[in-house]
């Protein structure tokens, strides 16, 4: 707000005081939100990183198991098994909210150990590959959940930080300056009135004598 652009009236002063109080309150709330988000993201970080590493290792295991299955059974027959598997695996994705940030919760439905392929045409190495990829899937779901959570929290922290900064560096000083400015102008006017009254009294006293 440019200096001198507000009329120095009591109404303006009251409004500016209310705005200032509101901006300070908003600042405190947002700052607390920011701190809570930071605490949450920091508490998750180690677990998230650990899960990522586990997923990577499990992928290595699974690719190796798949390679062995293909060696023992032939590329084509593994392909047939894959084709004959019903694509019915489902995961449960819901949402929870922390400080208004929507965060995913992923659960893998426990896979029934129903064999979808005939045992006669396959080898144990296929079973191992299936198990290894099953592990990959459940880990991947947890990583998808934690990674997305960290990602969204980080973004919300940046957003909240910008708002906190805007309040602290722009809005609050602006309202504070209006309050100070109008208070000063009103005081000045009061002093003028006071001296004017005094002057009038003094003149009356002189005339009375």
């Amino acid at each position: 707000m440019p200096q001198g652009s507000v009329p120095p009236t009591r109404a303006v002063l009251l409004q500016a005081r209310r705005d200032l109080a509101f901006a300070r309150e908003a600042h405190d709330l947002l700052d607390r939100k920011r701190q809570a988000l930071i605490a949450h993201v920091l508490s998750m970080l180690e677990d998230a990183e650990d899960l990522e590493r586990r997923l990577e290792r499990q992928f290595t295991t699974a690719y190796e198991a798949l390679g062995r299955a293909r060696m023992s059974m032939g590329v084509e027959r593994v392909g047939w098994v894959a084709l004959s598997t019903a694509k019915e695996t489902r995961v449960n994705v819901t949402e929870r909210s922390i400080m208004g940030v929507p965060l995913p919760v992923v659960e893998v439905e426990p896979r029934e150990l129903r064999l979808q392929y005939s045992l006669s045409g396959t080898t144990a190495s296929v079973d191992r590959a299936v198990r290894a990829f099953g592990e990959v899937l459940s880990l991947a779901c947890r990583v998808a959940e934690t990674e997305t959570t960290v990602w969204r929290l980080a973004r919300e922290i940046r957003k909240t930080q910008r708002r906190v900064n805007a309040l602290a560096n722009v809005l609050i000083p602006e309202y504070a300056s209006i309050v100070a400015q109008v208070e000063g102008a009103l005081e000045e006017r009061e002093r003028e009135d006071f001296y004017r009254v005094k002057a009038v009294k003094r003149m009356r006293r002189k005339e009375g004598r």
Partner: protein
Amino acid sequence: MELKVFVIGERDTVLGFSLIGVDGMATDDADVAVQKLDDLLADPSVGIVLVTSEIANRIMPVIENRKALATLPLILEIPDRLSRPAKAPLRDLVRRALGVSI
């Protein structure tokens, strides 16, 4: 909500996931992958999209953009046989958000 998982990318990864009943599409064409990704994002029955690293690294800007726009499905870059996803480590992400070292 019971939702599907879908894999886009390397042939081996798609094969491995199909063994456990997860559908997928093998491609090494970036445009095809982006098209498929957008189809999946518009499909309310899909919960998670896995993209293998070789292709994910080529379309990373698109993936980041889609992650910022959509709440669902979740998108995850996963390692393929030969490479790992070239995404920023989570720690860096958090560090940048906080503006300090942790």
